[in-house]
Structure formats: structure tokens, C-alpha cells
């Protein structure tokens, strides 16, 4: 594998950079699409299509995030640039929470659509089968899904603010090394 794809102990490889921004773009798009589609009414042309897209894209995003997590595990993690131990721990916890909340969003979204025992068709290519079904599952999972989505946006705002703090206040390469590969 070409070495510029992989992480080093001081910087991210192109694969991690690409996956980071792909997931960021997808998460924002899914949040916007989600807010928009629940306001559509019966006679809007995109009443059905928006939901099908959200479900299909959500399944694909879950696969991408899972792949990203595996990539993170098998690659070296670039060492933190902040000297402050508390900030280092907080950053680590926030990153872990971002993954956990995304995972919970995928699970809750899946549980809404499969609550009646029907699978989710991903762009008609393949179908993810239903598993759990229960009373009022679509309502409960729906509430959780909505709160998680807002919660994730809050955490993303914190994540972005922390990146900007590193860039403008600490004046270190934390943000830059997620934009391009840094040569050792």
C-alpha cells in the first residue's frame, strides 16, 4: 500500500483525511436532509424520495464509519499536539463520543424503519433485514434518533471550536494536519 495513505506518528495519511471529511460532509447532509424531510407533506414531490435517500445513505454511511474506525485501529494515531493533559483527555473523550453517537444514530435510525419487520432497501441494490421489532418501537427509536442528531451537532460544534482553538490560539498543526498530509 502506498505510504502516503497511512498515518504516521506525527500526521494523518490521505485515507484518514479523506474519510474524516467524507463523514463530516455526510453527517451534515444527513442532518439537514433529516430536518427537511420530516417537514414535507403528502403532496410534496420529494415526500417519499427524501426518506428513501436518507435511509439508503444512512446505511452506507454506517459502513463507511465502521471502515473508518477499523482504519483508525490498524493505523498509528498521530500524537496529540497539546501539552495540556486535561485537554488531551477531553479531546480523546470527545472523539470517542463522536463515534458512539454516530453508532447510536445508525442503530436508532435502523430501528425506526425496521420496526414493522420490513428490511431497508439501499438504493434498490441490497436490503438490510429487520431484526428487533416491538410495540411503539418506531416512536421510541424516532425520539432517540432526533435527540441524538441534535446532540451530535452540539458535539461537532465543540469539535470544530477545539480545532480552531488549536489553530488560532495554540498555533499548532492540529487542524492543518487534518487538511493535508504533513511530511515528517
Amino acid at each position, binding site marked *: 500500500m502506498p505510504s502516503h495513505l497511512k498515518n504516521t506518528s506525527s500526521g494523518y495519511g490521505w485515507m484518514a483525511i479523506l474519510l474524516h471529511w467524507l463523514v463530516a460532509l455526510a453527517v451534515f447532509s444527513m442532518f439537514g436532509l433529516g430536518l427537511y424531510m420530516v417537514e414535507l*407533506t403528502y403532496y410534496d414531490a420529494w415526500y417519499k424520495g427524501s426518506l428513501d435517500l436518507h435511509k439508503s445513505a444512512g446505511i452506507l454511511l454506517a459502513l463507511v464509519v465502521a471502515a473508518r474506525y477499523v482504519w483508525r485501529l490498524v493505523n498509528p494515531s498521530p500524537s496529540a499536539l497539546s501539552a495540556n493533559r486535561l485537554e488531551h483527555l477531553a479531546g480523546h473523550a470527545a472523539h470517542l463520543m463522536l463515534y458512539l453517537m454516530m453508532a447510536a444514530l445508525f442503530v436508532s435510525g435502523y430501528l425506526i424503519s*425496521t*420496526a414493522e419487520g420490513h428490511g431497508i432497501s439501499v438504493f434498490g441494490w441490497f436490503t438490510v433485514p429487520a431484526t428487533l421489532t416491538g410495540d411503539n418501537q418506531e416512536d421510541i427509536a424516532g425520539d432517540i434518533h432526533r435527540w441524538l442528531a441534535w446532540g451530535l451537532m452540539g458535539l461537532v460544534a465543540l469539535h470544530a471550536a477545539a480545532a480552531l482553538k488549536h489553530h488560532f490560539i495554540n498555533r499548532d498543526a492540529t487542524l492543518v494536519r487534518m487538511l493535508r498530509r504533513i511530511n515528517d
Partner: protein
Amino acid sequence: MKKLLLTTLFSVTALTATAAQAATYDVDNEGAHASVNFQIQHLGYSWLTGRFNDFDGSFEYDAAAPEKSSIEVVIDTTSLDSNHAERDKHLKSADFLDVKKYPTATFKSTGFKSTGEGKGEITGDFTLHGVTKSITFPVKRIGEGNDPWGGYRAGFTGSTTLKLKDYGIDYDLGPASTTVEITLHIEGVRQ
């Protein structure tokens, strides 16, 4: 809670009913020999059918004195099931039934008019989406008699068409879908 309410209601009606000789029947929802179904036009092209899976009720009935008949049914609106999770979620939301605010729909009869052997017209208060209206609709006895397990059963069916707007539900589903037909199939076990 619902059970307790019904049991209480039961004992009260049972007490008052003794004089009239009418028997009390408990709707056999445990054995699922009863169902509350609905159907509504989809765009005017076909029928969409659904059901309420959870409800409870009892009725008073005596073939010799049918005008003494009465019925009470409590429907759990959160149990709506149209075999499509996202549609169920939408139908239960504030756009339609708003089940968080109105978790039950009830029908309580106020009168019964016999229109022939095993037939009649029932009048009662129907509460849906927080709106109570008096409705009258025909009911038909399907049959009654001993069951093979030592009990005595009687079964009826009745259906009525409701205007959604009358019950404060004004989501635009199109001109063909302004009314919903609700059908009740019940079998009761005599107590």
C-alpha cells in the same frame, strides 16, 4: 390500569344489568377474536387498510331483549398498525392522531334500535383525537352459541364512515381520502 378501569366498569354494569336479564360479554381480545380495522383511500386509487392491535371492551346483549344492548370499547391508539413503520409513526404523530396527547379512543353506546332479527342500529359517543361525537351505525349479529370449551359466545360486526375533519384531523391526504371507514368485529364471552 386499563384493566382495572374496565373491571370496575364491568362490576357496575353487571350489577345494574341483572334486573334486565341481559348478559355481560367480555370481548375476547386475548384470543384475538376481535379486531378494530380501518380503511382509507390512497389517492383515490386503492384502499389502505390498518388496524388497532390493542383494545378492550365489553357488551351487554340479550337476544330476547335486543333494545337493552349496550357496548363500550376502549382503543389504544398507540397500537395503530398499517404494516409500515414510518407510516405508523406519521399516523400516530401530531399530524394525525397525536397519540401522545390522545392515547385512547373510546366508543360508549347510548342507545340501540333493533331493525330485525340479529340486526340493529347502535348510537353512541365516539371519542377520537380528543373530540367526542354521537354517531349511529348499523350492526349485525354474526352468530352466538356454545363454544367447545365450556363458554358461551356471541359475535357482531359493524362499521361506520367518519369524516376526519369532524375529529379535528385536517392533514391534506387529497380529496379521495377525507373519510375513514372503521370496522369493528367483536366476539364476546358471556360472563
